[in-house]
């Protein structure tokens, strides 16, 4: 007898009720596995942000509407019927229709707002898991792994007694505390991450239809790249929802920190670009400002995302595919969640439930998920092109007369096809070349001037923060080293902080003591949106707030 024998036991505990956790729980429940789902938000989706497109891939063994019938009717916004990419240089814009790239292997793709989507999923999950003797509990934060003789046997929480399980599914998102507790993920390298910020903009459905030239039941997805982001590697997006737009920007975190760029200002660059005037009109009303860290699966997707009884699913395992204009995360989380469940059921049938992790890893490979997340072609070609001297040469070549002539020679038709080639996109290196240099040249050479007058005045950062809903609990982030040298990057990189802005999380301060002056950083977690950026770029001890505390997104 050990004392842990007294703890409550479930066959499976699923941590987090986003799409990955929901899919795992649904697939487990479908197989009569007693499943408990723990969600730290006041409601599923209240902590979750995504750019906003969920895909169903033809090649995938599971799609979200397989597991949750009526998903598209009940939980999504508009389907994407047209896709464009805009290459921007100043007010010159070259736009390409890349619908074929997005329709490649896509059964469908819909825009979503995560609060609505995830809370709908959570209700289904609760109904399904309750049948198995489990259910969904919100406002419970799982804060670590329960170990017995060094082996993972369950989870610990801030609100409840520890819980034992034969399977622990960590679907606790990009800042997964379980993945870090197990040593499977870390926050070390900025180049493994993207940071996205997003504004949800209120808009009458009639206005959306008119401004985008679409009907009810149709929707647009626009991507933006080029020189409108001050040289920071990344791009922008705009998706149409039922009665709002999701407009955001996603940047490589290493580039964001190198350039000391302010994410909210880069978002404003997009919002105020003349190109967007046609869609935003004169009545800009921002409903919500949000931010999220995004793993770059090419580098961060864990090839073996399991340990003992623990399996990682979705963002927690780095399963977020971002290759050029292809940004797919939720569908992979769904597939992974369902495969993890499948693996557990198989393992149980073989009378060895604790072998689920190995089976899960095998299924991720056999079903082609791993190849999508970490394409072999990128590992050879893309990585090579990222080596600094080579990328400089590529950059220079593209920008030379020869490169320019090439762009002109290729012409818009071929470029459009190139952008539309999934193979090309998977190879694309993470350098300035594809994100900034080439789109800028394309726009300069092939673009047309946009002379519309954009009247949008995005809210100031303090108003964006003021509009978010928080329940300030105890500080959940501890600044371990408050010297500017160690943690100063957070002042600009944090999406709710800025230089010379005293109302954010991170503020830089010159403190005079005994005649000498120190350059320090101070932290107030009150406006924290829990994106995790500072965990990577600053020296912190980072945890999530306890269940029900912290930021609450209404849109997500």
């Amino acid at each position, binding site marked *: 007898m050990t004392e842990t024998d007294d703890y409550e036991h479930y066959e499976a505990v699923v941590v987090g009720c986003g799409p990955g956790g929901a899919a795992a729980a649904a697939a487990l429940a479908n197989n009569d596995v007693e499943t408990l789902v723990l969600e730290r938000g006041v409601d599923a989706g209240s902590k979750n942000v995504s750019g906003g497109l969920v895909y169903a891939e033809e090649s995938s063994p599971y799609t979200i509407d397989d597991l949750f019938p009526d998903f598209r009717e009940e939980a999504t916004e508009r389907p994407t019927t047209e896709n464009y990419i805009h290459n921007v240089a100043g007010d010159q814009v070259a736009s390409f229709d890349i619908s074929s790239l997005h329709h490649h292997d896509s059964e469908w793709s819909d825009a979503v707002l995560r609060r609505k989507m995830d809370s709908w999923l959570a209700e289904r999950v609760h109904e399904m898991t309750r049948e198995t003797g489990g259910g969904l509990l919100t406002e419970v934060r799982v804060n670590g792994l329960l170990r017995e003789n060094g082996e993972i046997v369950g989870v610990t929480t801030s609100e409840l007694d520890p819980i034992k399980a034969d399977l622990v599914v960590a679907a606790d998102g990009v800042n997964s505390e379980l993945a870090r507790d197990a040593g499977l993920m870390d926050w070390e390298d900025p180049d493994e991450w993207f940071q996205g910020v997003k504004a949800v903009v209120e808009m009458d459905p009639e206005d959306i239809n008119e401004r985008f030239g679409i009907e009810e039941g149709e929707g647009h997805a626009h991507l933006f790249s080029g020189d409108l982001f001050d040289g920071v590697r990344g791009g922008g997006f705009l998706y149409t929802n039922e009665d709002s737009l999701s407009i955001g920007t996603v940047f490589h975190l290493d580039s964001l920190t190198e350039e000391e760029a302010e994410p909210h200002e880069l978002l404003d660059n997009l919002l105020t670009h003349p190109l967007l005037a046609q869609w935003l009109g004169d009545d800009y009303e921002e409903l919500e400002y949000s931010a999220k860290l995004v793993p770059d699966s090419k580098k961060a997707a864990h090839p073996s995302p399991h340990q003992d009884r623990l399996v990682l699913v979705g963002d927690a395992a780095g399963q977020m595919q971002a290759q050029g204009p292809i940004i797919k995360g939720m569908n992979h989380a769904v597939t992974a969640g369902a495969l993890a469940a499948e693996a557990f059921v198989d393992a149980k049938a073989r009378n060895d439930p604790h072998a689920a992790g190995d089976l899960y890893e095998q299924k991720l490979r056999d079903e082609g998920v791993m190849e999508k997340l970490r394409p072999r072609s990128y590992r050879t070609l893309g990585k090579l092109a990222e080596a600094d001297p080579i990328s400089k040469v590529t950059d220079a070549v593209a920008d030379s007369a020869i490169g320019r002539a090439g762009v002109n020679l290729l012409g818009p038709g071929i470029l459009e096809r190139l952008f539309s080639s999934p193979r090309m996109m998977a190879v694309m290196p993470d350098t300035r070349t594809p994100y900034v240099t080439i789109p800028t040249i394309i726009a300069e050479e092939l673009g047309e001037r946009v002379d519309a007058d954009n009247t949008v005045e995005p809210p100031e950062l*303090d*108003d964006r*923060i*003021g509009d978010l809903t928080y329940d*300030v609990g105890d500080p959940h982030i501890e600044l371990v080293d*408050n010297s500017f040298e160690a943690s100063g990057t957070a002042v600009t990189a944090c999406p709710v902080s800025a230089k010379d802005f*005293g*109302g954010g999380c991170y*503020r830089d*301060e*010159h*403190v*005079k*003591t005994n005649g000498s002056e120190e350059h*320090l*950083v*101070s*932290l*107030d977690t*009150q406006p924290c949106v829990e994106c995790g950026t500072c965990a990577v770029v600053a020296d912190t001890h980072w945890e999530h707030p306890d269940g029900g505390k912290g930021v609450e997104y209404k849109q997500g």
Partner: protein
Amino acid sequence: MVDIDPTEHEIAELGPEVNQIDDVDELEAMLALEEDGEDRQPVKTLIESRIETLEADDEAVDPETVDLTDLTIADIANLVRDVDDVDVLEDMLEREAGGNDRKGAKEQIENRIDSLEGSGDEEPTEVEYVPPEEKYPDLDHPTADKQYVEGVSGERYRDMWVYCETQQGELIDVAKEMLGKARELMDEYNSDSDAEGAYGGDEDGEPEDVVAVVIGSDVEDLAEEAVAYGADRVVYHDDERLERFRHKPYTEIYAHMCRDFEADWRDYHEPRYNVFPATNNGRDLSALVQGELDSGLASDCSDLYIENAMISNPAKTGTPGDSREFERVLHMPRPDFSGFEYSTILCIDKPHRDFHPQGASVIPGAFDLPEPNHDREGELVEHDLDLPEEWFQIEILEADQLDEGVDLTGNDVVVALGRGIGDDPTAGIELGVDLVDQFENADLGFSRGVLTASYQFAGHVEQYVNMERQIGESGQVVEPEVYIAAGISGAIQHKVGMDESETIIAINDDPDADIRDFSDYFIQGDLFEVLPRLTEAVEAGELSAVAQEASDD
């Protein structure tokens, strides 16, 4: 003649009709009509079965003569239930023994005899009391050797007792609140009104009292005060060793007062009701005392009322299927699940074991603080008990009083400093304090940004830099006559803490600072220059003139 000719009706209609007829002759006539007419078998069965039922009722079995060998054990069980004469039962027992001699049948008769002999004139109960130790000899009975698990029944209980906690030599507010409520409850209890909680006094019509309990050192004055707040009688124990709350002596004293204390007015077994405050000490004491008195406790109650309660739980009524009305029950509503639900707790006697005093602890602030009436009269009773040294084995070596905290509300003037002091935080606070000192009723506050900063402050101003001085959403909300905000930009989180102020004067070097939108006067400038000038102006009595001059509003 019959009222209903069955041949004229469908069988579905006949069912209810037939079952209302009590006259066997009429039924026989109907049966004849049916046989002559339609002659439907189901209808005949219906009528015949009704006739059978009526005849069965008539031929009541006489237990004195019936042949027991004709009866099943169940028949016998039904039969003996109506027999009240033990002699008849004894006779039946003999007959059964001489006849079939069924063990089950004899048990039924014996049980009935036991129940009649045991319960005297009382209503017979079907569930016989067997002490748990005998009923379940294989189980542990942890309370079996507890002196005061008494299992008494039919004892006398009176009065509402209120534990009046003291702190720093004063009655705490919740004690007064409880006395006020107890007074209200017992006044109604003793009245003859039609209200549900009115009983016209105890079972003999004598009024019951509010008894306050005060335990501590030098508490006689507090006992007087308890009378002013509504007590009829105050039992107090004074001992300098009782200066601070300690579990053992406080529990022993309180329990002794309730149970063993001999006084001519206390001619009852234990109090009827015990009410404690749900403070830290009150929660401890209430649980210990109610446990010691072998009763129950509803903790953290938000209301109290006295009413009758209809109870059907057989553990309480003693008879499955029956409901019984319990009188004078203290109803104790309390929040569950952080207030999502309320439960009303009742503490009710059960057969062979009383649950008195009915005990509650009450959340501070649940009842209104009453006005004291110093002309009220009441009896003070000093409790007399030697306190053995072993009750004081726990010694209090040191005690510390927590700071009361800073209350910025209620000031005429609040000077609030923001991150504008960042260039020289110590000087900024000095300037703020200088200005505060110009007013009689003023204090210093901060925006959250200052309190979470890494600023270093010199020792003499550090005392001010305290989260308790935070103004805003996560701090205090103030509404002074004059709010002076220096170096505060006016984020929404700060605004909610101060925008109800009568007059808002803002000092900021940024002309676009948000605070300008909700200030009455906006002084654009460096607070390190403006604050000293404001201080001078106030000193000279020219504040409004300076503000007017500097303001561009």
